[in-house]
């Protein structure tokens, strides 16, 4: 026969369930892009972790010397369950990746000219959440009664401040806004003339891929993907089927989870000499406040004889 759960235990379990659901949303195959929701979800996870930590007296992180024998035994046993849960959760993440790749193969995303990242920022956050918070969540779920004595304050009789770590939430938000708003945009460019074995009669082609990223992986990325061709008379961006086109103007899944990309435009212009000017413009906006934005411009200039005058 099962005992009824105490109110405290119900609260702790409710918080664990909300944390688990938030984590699942983070790794979920759908939506394919969080479109700026990644940071609010991350802050939500951190806040829930702090709540769980405070409700469990931060037992998972307490020094062994500050615990009595029963607490130490419970904590060690919890870590064993948590170790297995990490394995289980990682398998769930891999399964979600598999499902995502299958969905992509049916929607044509797999044929994008630039390879998609296996791990986006949402996966990194989900993995860190697992590794850091899982033992605390297990303790919160299993602990039948309120933890006797806060291990952080058991010594010396000091009054604990178990909620102080909640300051991490605004601190993390401020740090992230600073990173997205002020740190230099990271740019990369690659040219691969043999990509996709593409060739065209009477013209030479090359594939140009570039990206500019704000927030060092935890923001958004704007991409340039152009299959540029030139035939001695003029240069142009080759386009064919929108699903398999090597020239793309879009925000691929996994590149704008933590910040939004808005106003994406790709323009192509050819001057009188046959030189092609291909320009990508977009605005990266933080998902937290509309005041932190970055304007991104990327340009590719190719002459009619294939010389690259500007790229990046």
């Amino acid at each position, binding site marked *: 026969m099962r005992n009824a759960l105490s109110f405290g235990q119900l609260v702790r379990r409710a918080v664990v369930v909300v944390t688990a659901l938030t984590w699942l949303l983070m790794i979920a195959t759908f939506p394919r892009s969080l479109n700026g929701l990644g940071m609010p979800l991350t802050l939500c996870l951190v806040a829930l972790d702090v709540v769980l930590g405070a409700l469990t007296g931060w037992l998972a992180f307490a020094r062994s010397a500050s615990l009595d024998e029963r607490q130490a035994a419970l904590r060690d046993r919890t870590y064993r369950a948590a170790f297995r849960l990490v*394995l289980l959760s990682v*398998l769930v993440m891999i399964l979600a990746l598999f499902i995502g790749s299958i969905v992509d193969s049916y929607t044509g995303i797999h044929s994008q000219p630039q390879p998609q990242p296996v791990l986006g920022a949402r996966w990194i956050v989900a993995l860190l959440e697992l590794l850091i918070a899982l033992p605390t969540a297990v303790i919160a779920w299993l602990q039948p009664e309120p933890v006797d004595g806060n291990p952080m304050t058991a010594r010396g009789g000091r009054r604990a401040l178990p909620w102080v770590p909640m300051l991490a939430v605004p601190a993390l938000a401020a740090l992230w806004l600073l990173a997205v708003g002020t740190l230099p945009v990271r740019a990369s460019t690659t040219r691969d003339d043999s990509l996709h074995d593409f060739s065209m009669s009477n013209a030479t082609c090359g594939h140009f891929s570039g990206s500019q990223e704000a927030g060092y992986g935890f923001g958004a990325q704007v991409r340039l993907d152009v299959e540029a061709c030139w035939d001695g008379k003029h240069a142009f961006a080759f386009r064919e089927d929108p699903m398999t086109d090597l020239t793309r103007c879009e925000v691929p899944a996994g590149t704008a989870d933590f910040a939004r990309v808005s106003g994406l435009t790709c323009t192509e212009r050819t001057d009188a000499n046959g030189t092609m000017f291909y320009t990508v413009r977009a605005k990266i906006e933080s998902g937290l406040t509309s005041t932190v934005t970055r304007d991104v411009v990327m340009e590719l200039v190719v002459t009619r004889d294939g010389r690259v005058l500007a790229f990046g």
Partner: protein
Amino acid sequence: MTNRLDRVSTLTIQRVTAALVILIVAFWFLAGIWFFEFSSLYLVFIIVTILVVRSVPVQPGVWLGRRPVRRGLVGVITLALVLGSLSPYGPNGVGAVPFLSLILALCFILLGRATKRVASAPDAMVDEREESLRNRAHRIAYMIFAALAAGTILVAYVATADSRAWLDNSLKFGTPFITFFLLLFFLPAMVLAWLEPDRPSSELAPRLPATRGARLAMSMVAVALLLPIALTLALPFAPLRTTMKIVAEPEQTTAAMSCKYFEARTRAGFGYGAVIPISAEACWDGHKAFENWGLNQSDCHSFGSEGTIGSTITCSRTTDADGTLHFLYRVRLRSAILPFVFKDVAMTLILARDGRVVAFP
């Protein structure tokens, strides 16, 4: 409390984990692992071997009962994992990975013996001291794992574009990804082997009797370890098996020109080897023979490579003065396990200007 923990930690989690592993392996097969015929069978054999080995009780014996020996074993495993993670793997080379894999397989068998598989044993199989020690080992292992995994992944993701590319490549079933999983499975046992004190001589259990199960397990381990080496050594001596077909292409044929479709597949090696293909269409018009498609540099590639790395020696297409088309694709299949073992395979198509097939394949 204990019952709830038991239920959560040994029953539900293990079953759900097993179900997920089956599901992922099923996805893996669906995604194309069926293409690797021998590797699939070998993987199944390894899984069965693990199950059989785990069903046999073990005692550490005199040597593995000693702490310095166990710590040495943990050191060797750590070194092999580090070297394996740093070794290149994939189409550009396999480094020392296959050799390290064999070393690791042996070490993990010894590790299970040294710790009596206490780390993963059901609660009913361990006494109070072992229970306490393995819980402590799991806590320490968790902290080591969390620090290693979180630190590596976060730094690699944020640092540079190159480090992020390394992380991405690692996760496409590269060696760091395999190390990640090996640590998830074996790190608690490694910590346990490191922590456990010397066994007093009074505790050194006598060698267990060689039961039928123990003999079977030993035999399966021997086969699992020796089979890849035996199949590798057979690579240069295994006869080449070729299938081919030549089909007329009436749709391409006109009054002035005729075409044929040429397909050949040569399989080298038993188990560990590769398939070298030609799949092309060639035509002739009385003056010369020429390629329509399928005889280019991009067509010179082997497939179905298992335990071997193929490198192209020659890939050439020429038309001589008589108008005869010559296509030659020579590939060297080098063993991934013993790099000094290799086999050269040549595929040829010589087509005269009047459509006569001089040589194929």
